């Protein structure tokens, strides 16, 4: 009896902490309702929607050209891929074949976007773990890419470079030289990333074995992108459903089987090398051709359903367009990668410490507007 009482008296009590909506490591306005037992996380319950703008409803009122620029505002770090997804879907609906030049340029810009997204992620990952310097180094290298984007399409972040039927502008004359310059620069800087963070023993201890997601769970939760591939699930849309010019480039799909935070980290770092390989293969042979196919000023899709997937920096983005033959879509659905990836957070973070939760959050690389849409 007394033992039981004693046990009861020393029993720890769970308590709740609201992490967010304003919190440095939720990367935006995400609220996590944590159930904690001391420092140990027993449950994570994400509360979303703080920047829900109902893009899907807005799309129902917009023409197909206008939808494209809204997708910039979803996953702003892979805006080009978002644009591309909508444009590919509309082109599929119109049965419009864009020129080879457009395909190759789209692929190059996609990979540059992926690089820039991963660079920012790397910087932010370091900052979440307390190494603030990496943030600036990540931005330093990203700056060169955004400069290229600026010269190409006039915007650094929300590019809106794609239009249904091609690209808004042709590439500038010094595009190839600039991209090559960047690639040589970044090939030198990427090993520095490893030196500063990847090999660091503190970093290793913070990430290895933290937040394990099994392959079965990854598939069930639909955790795609580098996060899913780190669990050993081959889910690269670029390989399984090649779009644009991905069918003619030779690249490796990065797969790790550990499923922990370090595997997710490594998957992204290695993906940067692969992205540079893809750009290397394409940059010297951009075919001649139109950068834009003529479309009608008012695009009307036939009565049809289209589903288009692309691989963004975060995972598989699906665009579902249901058209009833009018100039506006009847229903647009964006299957955003962050939304599904966040769903698995509880499984990964359960049983870890608060610091582990922060690590996991940054390794699944959340972009909140992508989740909330």
């Amino acid at each position, binding site marked *: 009896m007394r033992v039981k009482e004693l046990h009861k008296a020393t029993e720890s009590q769970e308590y709740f902490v609201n992490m967010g909506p304003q919190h440095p490591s939720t990367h935006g306005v995400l609220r996590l309702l944590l159930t904690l037992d001391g420092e140990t996380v027993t449950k994570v319950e994400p509360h979303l929607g703080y920047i829900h703008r109902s893009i899907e409803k807005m799309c129902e009122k*917009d023409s197909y*050209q*206008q939808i*494209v*620029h*809204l997708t*910039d505002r979803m996953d702003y770090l892979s805006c080009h891929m978002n644009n591309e997804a909508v444009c590919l879907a509309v082109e599929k609906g119109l049965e419009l074949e864009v020129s080879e030049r457009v395909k190759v340029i789209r692929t190059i810009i996609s990979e540059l976007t992926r690089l820039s997204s991963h660079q920012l992620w790397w910087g932010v990952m370091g900052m979440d773990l307390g190494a603030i*310097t990496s943030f600036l180094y990540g931005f*330093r290298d990203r*700056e060169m890419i955004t400069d290229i984007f*600026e*010269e*190409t*399409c*006039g*915007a650094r972040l*929300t590019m*809106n470079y794609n239009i249904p039927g091609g690209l*808004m*502008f042709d590439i*500038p004359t010094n595009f190839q030289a600039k991209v090559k310059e960047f690639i040589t620069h970044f090939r030198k800087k990427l090993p*520095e990333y490893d*030196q*500063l*963070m990847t*090999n*660091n*023993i*503190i970093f*290793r201890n913070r990430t290895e074995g933290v937040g394990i997601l099994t392959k079965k769970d990854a598939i069930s939760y639909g955790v795609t992108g580098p996060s899913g591939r780190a669990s050993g699930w081959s889910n690269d849309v670029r390989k399984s459903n090649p779009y644009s010019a991905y069918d003619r480039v030779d690249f490796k799909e990065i797969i790790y089987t550990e499923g922990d935070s370090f595997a997710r980290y490594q998957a992204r770092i290695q993906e940067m090398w692969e992205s540079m390989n893809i750009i290397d293969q394409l940059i010297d042979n951009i075919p001649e051709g139109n950068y834009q196919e003529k479309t009608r*000023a008012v695009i009307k899709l036939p009565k049809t359903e289209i589903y288009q997937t692309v691989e963004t920096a975060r995972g598989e983005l699906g665009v579902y367009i249901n058209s009833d033959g009018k100039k506006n879509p009847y229903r647009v659905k964006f299957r955003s990668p962050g939304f599904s990836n966040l769903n698995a957070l509880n499984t990964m973070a359960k049983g870890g410490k608060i610091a582990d939760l922060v690590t996991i959050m940054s390794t699944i690389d959340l972009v909140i507007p992508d989740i909330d849409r």
Partner: protein
Amino acid sequence: MKAIINYIKEVLSGVKTLINGMKVTGYYISHPKEIITQQYPENRDTLKMVDRFRGEVIMPHDENNEHACTGCQACEIACPNGSIEIIQDRILNEETGKKKKTILKHVYHLSMCTMCNLCIPACPTDAIIMGQGFEHSVFDRSKLTKVLNKPGSKLRDGVEE
């Protein structure tokens, strides 16, 4: 014994990775030339935006204070979020005696504009272009609503054909 050797090895390799990391930051503090940040207002004279930079929508006027906007509203339709409003009127043309649509005001709400560049290709007469200005901050929000055609300006001859 083996455990002790492993322990020492572990400590030494850990310290080595830490020193490696410090080498990276140490390199940058000893090479101040690699500093990448810019002193923005100070470098204003040398700062030049790229040609395609999308800062704001502007309507170029020539030396006779004439522009190329016919008021066809193509840009207004193309705009996804209603940043452009065209106010027009039918004015009697004295030569032909017919009433003709004429633009009074090309109102541009910079505060709503997302710089998506959809209005520029939509314009049939290339009357509007994207300007390079980026210093848009004002103290009063109403100042962000701009009238793009200058007062007293008129349509350039020969545009409408």
